[in-house]
């Protein structure tokens, strides 16, 4: 039983981490008034670029940097074509995802049979000795540790710093941001490109730490989910822990249920996270003071930014 719980925690965290990165990334983007479903494509690109860099150079830092660069490019496509060319942000994101999928599929084909050493697990002394949770939480790879801090850091930046206020203002009433002298265009570009970067780093975690594998389309909808989960944490970074690990838990429960022979059809178990997200969304939406950025309510109309 102990083993079971320990493993449940481990799998929850490992499968929740890529989602955490993309979720926090898109949260920043959504705070700036822009939903990027293309975090799916950014994550996939990150998986591929990170894996390739890992394989050819064996330099983990380089892998993360190159993946981040690729993610930033995906984010740039998303925001540039949306703001400057007036493309519908969801349709555009679909096209970007097709593009990322096709390109990584094509150029990543030769990497499928390759093996890498990737990110090793680093046990934190003392903390990793804690019974039950120690090994699952404090014996992880470096990217997972970063993901633990990510919501706190991003929360701090968004709510306690000047730049955070600027981003949030740009996402609420951009005219106000303009009036304050902020460069709204630049803020939005930055926020959405950050979303791409973080999602790509999540992709690196997925391909170089969690599975040590590159396969075609391996992101498998994780980015889409992350994007939807942003609402589940009602745009508050602190709640990302709950949202990301809820999804991770559902993933690992699906396996555990089968191992314990609990007779629930597999497809019903895998449906659960989506239904839970939907229900949680309902509760959050009934909140009298939802923290939804104002600009998000205007989705579907072309953005007009006057600077």
């Amino acid at each position, binding site marked *: 039983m102990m083993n079971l719980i320990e493993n449940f925690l481990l799998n929850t965290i490992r499968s929740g981490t890529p989602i955490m990165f993309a979720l926090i990334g898109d949260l920043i983007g959504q705070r700036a008034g822009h*939903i990027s*479903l293309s975090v799916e494509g950014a994550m996939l690109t990150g998986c591929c670029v990170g894996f390739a860099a890992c394989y050819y150079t064996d330099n983990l830092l380089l892998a993360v940097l190159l993946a981040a660069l690729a993610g930033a490019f995906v984010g740039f*496509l998303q925001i540039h*074509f949306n703001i*400057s*060319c*007036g*493309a*519908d942000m*969801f*349709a*555009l994101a*679909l*096209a*970007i995802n*097709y*593009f990322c*999928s*096709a*390109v990584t*599929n*094509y150029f990543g*084909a030769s990497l499928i049979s390759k093996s890498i050493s990737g990110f090793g697990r680093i046990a934190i002394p003392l903390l990793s000795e804690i019974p039950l949770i120690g090994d699952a939480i404090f014996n992880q790879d470096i990217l997972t540790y970063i993901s633990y801090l990510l919501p706190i850091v991003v929360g701090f930046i968004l709510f306690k710093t000047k730049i955070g206020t600027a981003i949030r203002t740009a996402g609420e009433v951009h005219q106000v941001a303009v009036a304050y002298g902020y460069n709204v265009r630049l803020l939005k570009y930055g926020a959405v490109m950050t979303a791409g970067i973080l999602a790509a780093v999540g992709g690196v975690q997925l391909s170089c730490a969690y599975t040590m594998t590159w396969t*075609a389309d391996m992101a498998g*909808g994780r980015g*889409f*989910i992350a*994007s*939807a989960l942003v*609402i589940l944490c009602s745009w508050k970074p602190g709640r990302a822990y709950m949202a990301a690990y809820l999804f991770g838990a559902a993933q690992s429960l699906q396996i555990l249920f089968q191992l314990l022979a609990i007779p629930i*059809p597999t*497809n*019903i178990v*895998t*449906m659960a996270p*989506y*239904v839970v*997200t*939907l229900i949680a*969304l*309902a509760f959050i*939406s*009934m909140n009298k003071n*939802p923290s*939804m950025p104002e600009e*998000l309510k205007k*989705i*579907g*109309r*072309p953005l*007009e930014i006057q600077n």
Partner: protein
Amino acid sequence: MMQKMTVKAGADRPEIRKVLMRVLAGIFVPIGLFSIFLLTQRQNPLTVYRALVMCFAGSKYNVGEIAVEMTPVLLAGMAALIPAKVGLSNCGGEGQLIAGCLTANIVGVYLCSGLPGVVGIPIMLAAAAAAGLLWAAIPLFCKMKLNMNETLTTLLSNYIMYKLVAYMVFGPIKDTAGNNYPMSARIAEQLRLPAFAGTRANVMIFAALFVVVITAFVFAKTELGFKLRTIGGNERAAEFAGFSVKKARCWAFLIAGAIAGLGGGIVMSSVEFQMREATAHDLGYLGFLATGIAGGSPIVSIFTSFLLSALSVCGTSLEITTGLRSSASTILMSVILLTIFGLGRGRREK
């Protein structure tokens, strides 16, 4: 804006030149980019483009295939476009279309198997439309009563529909007379829409075009369309003018769901005949994309749907004849899409 208008009247010539430039860019940028890609892959671009064009220039069957693909894409496109006109966004065409497909199969197999086609097919299609409507009603309810963002609820509902179909074909509707593979039973022969000779296309492509033209007509020429556009353009103004915003939005959304569901029903009775886990996947998203690049115009979405369907059909024949990977034709499609987005509405607001 004002400045531009005054300039425009006296400057038709530069305007035309600009349009022409953009047309040329729209053609040559993707072709050029893809040619570079092909050259790096040691393929002769001319052979590849010839294969692409020969695909539908030389074959009646392939033209039919484009029509087959285009029918649900058009309808799913309308499912995204109509709510967008009244200020709602429906990303759930995919799920609504599959709901229609699933329902048409269940109705076809369990209720209509003994009925003649003239009765059975309309019942199936009506059931499919109803299913799409009901599947759209869930996010609509969430929007109207619980104030939930419809973009995300519809997106989530697509995933739930995928899983629901998987559950159904592995369990309740699995064909017991078959070989225990996860497929439903097939609908009876007489419930399948008769195809034009030598193709798989049928009369439903015209039905889909008709739906699009009606939509365009309603929005462009009727008072109802004016009201709806006002609602989509400025909610306050519409309320001020005494339009019932909520009611209009509800109906628009439900009708959108029904149209997508109808698309699913058509897919079932035209080509699929049985339900599998991946049946009709991606058609809804392609429709969404088609209206996305059409910039919200129903008529333009006919062209964009044609473009996407043709690329998908001809991509297959490209792959067969040149030996390129399947991802290569997706690269071509996405480069074209991104180019169109990039040229898109341009900076006309500036």
